[in-house]
């Protein structure tokens, strides 16, 4: 028998919209009553929760930005007392302070439900052996996928990232059918397999759920051709819930959003105006069933579009176009969010260095690689190689410590980093 949440993906749209409106109204009420930030924002805009009479009224309400979460670090956005929170996750932040997200017991259930719906869409059932190769810990990837697979009744292997050789061994020996990791890590796994003469086609691996970083249709083709498995995109962000906000169905024609929990809008990133279905713009989410830390019109920075046409798979849930770029300068590298300004603060914290830098992101066959080019100034220049090398290592270590990314730091001569008029060109994203 199909689990009942499976049917949620096929719900009648009128019924869905009625549910969305009811949940949205309840959420606004709770935000107004329990979160000072939202009460002030509503009062300033002269709005009451009761001003939301239909779904379209949402456009009158204020946005939430990543900076708002940072300003209310760590627990300022909670809509419940701390003792109702059972889990805290965090993602890397712009100033060394992480962005914190908190979950009640109910929120974890919603999250597990969302991820298990992702798995169901990919044909996964309780009979499958699922290996989670996302990082565990503060990052939402590992535990998010883990609880979703458990909720579906799968046999879950909490492998975590790294150790490619062991990944291959477990895929083979444990009879893994389903793998969850970042797409770039899977490509790395494929390459290791090829080097070792390990044929993924000879294993039980059938489908991979790849997320936490943007990837292209071309990459899907490459993975599927080279490994023989089915590659599905799973989208999410910790602020909204974590992985499991939306995912590919068998048609792979846009990711179905679980809009009974996460209400999407597409806006013009400059004017904030809501765009028509099909038009491209910034993706904005309102969580309508979350309890601990609901967010209103959260600006993801991801550029996408929405399609309400019925999908060939029969699901009525809206589809979002695969995210390929962002409206701001945030980079996602190996699942880690990175703003150039973070690198700037690291450089400023190293004595004598100036924040003249450029970030080069490459996808070197498998993994995303970050190179930070730092200009050497007369103040830090030393006649001795080891002094310059220790400067470079210090910057490298600080980036690793504060941002959690291994980057290659290169010292360059001043003036080599192109200064475009007014604003320096900080990022060269050479990934394809």
């Amino acid at each position: 028998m199909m689990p009942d949440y499976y049917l949620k993906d096929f719900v009648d749209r009128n019924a869905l919209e009625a549910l969305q409106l009811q949940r949205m109204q309840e959420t606004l009420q709770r935000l107004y009553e329990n979160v000072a930030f939202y009460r002030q924002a509503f009062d300033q805009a002269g709005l009451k929760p009761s001003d939301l009479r239909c779904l379209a009224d949402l456009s009158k309400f204020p946005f939430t930005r990543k900076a708002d979460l940072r300003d209310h670090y760590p627990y300022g956005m909670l809509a419940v007392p701390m003792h109702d929170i059972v889990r805290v996750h965090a993602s890397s932040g712009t100033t060394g302070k992480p962005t914190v997200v908190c979950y009640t017991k109910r929120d974890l259930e919603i999250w597990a439900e969302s991820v298990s719906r992702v798995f169901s869409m990919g044909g996964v059932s309780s009979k499958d052996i699922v290996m989670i190769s996302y990082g565990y810990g503060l990052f939402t990837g590992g535990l998010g996928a883990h609880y979703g697979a458990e909720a579906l009744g799968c046999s879950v292997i909490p492998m975590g990232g790294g150790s490619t050789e062991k990944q291959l061994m477990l895929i083979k020996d444990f009879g893994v059918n389903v793998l969850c990791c970042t797409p770039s890590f899977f490509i790395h796994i494929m390459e290791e397999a090829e080097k070792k003469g390990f044929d993924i086609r000879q294993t039980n691996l059938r489908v991979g759920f790849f997320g936490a970083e943007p990837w292209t249709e071309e990459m899907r083709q490459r993975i599927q051709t080279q490994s023989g498995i089915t590659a599905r995109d799973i989208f999410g962000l910790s602020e909204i819930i974590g992985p499991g906000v939306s995912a590919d169905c068998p048609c792979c024609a846009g990711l179905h959003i679980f809009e009974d929990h996460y209400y999407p809008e597409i806006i013009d990133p400059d004017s904030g105006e809501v765009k028509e279905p099909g038009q491209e713009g910034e993706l904005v989410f309102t969580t309508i069933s979350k309890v601990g830390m609901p967010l209103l019109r959260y600006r993801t920075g991801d550029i996408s579009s929405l399609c309400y046409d019925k999908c060939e798979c029969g699901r009525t849930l809206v589809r979002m176009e695969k995210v390929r770029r962002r409206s701001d300068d945030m980079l996602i590298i190996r699942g880690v969010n990175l703003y150039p300004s973070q690198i700037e603060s690291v450089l400023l914290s190293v004595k004598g260095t100036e924040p003249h830098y450029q970030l080069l992101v490459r996808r070197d066959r498998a993994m995303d690689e970050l190179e930070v080019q730092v200009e050497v100034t007369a103040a830090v220049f030393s006649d001795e190689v080891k002094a310059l090398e220790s400067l470079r290592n210090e910057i490298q270590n600080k980036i690793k410590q504060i941002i959690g990314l291994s980057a290659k730091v290169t010292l360059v001569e001043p003036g080599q980093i192109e200064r475009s008029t007014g604003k320096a060109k900080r990022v060269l994203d050479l990934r394809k």
Partner: protein
Amino acid sequence: MKVRQLSIFLENRVGRLAGVAQLLGEAGISIRALSVADTNDFGILRLLVDDIVKAEEHLRRNNVVCRINNVTVVAVDNRPGGLAKVLTVLNQAAVNIEYMYAVAESSNQRPLLVFRFTEGEAAVAALKKADIKIINEEQLFA
């Protein structure tokens, strides 16, 4: 007794060394000795030049990162064991050599060693005590 040396930061990129040489040529600077320390990513060019102040100024004006520092230049006997003798003295005095390079004296082709020491004063004292000849700037550019 110190000799001033010009150290220049070079990115490991085609044409950088040529670029710096071009700048020095423009400024009418004569290069007496040269050494390059290189790593995978960058290099340090070390020069003894006739007009170091002018050279530094001209390079800085052209966005080249450089600085002036002091090195010790020592005359070595031009025969087998000449280098060993100097190094033995330094070794016995327990001074660390950061780096060194060699150049021939222009007048009589006698070898000169350019040293950068961690503890410069102790090194100079030990060399003097062993009667090893230390060369000053005037002698170097004579």
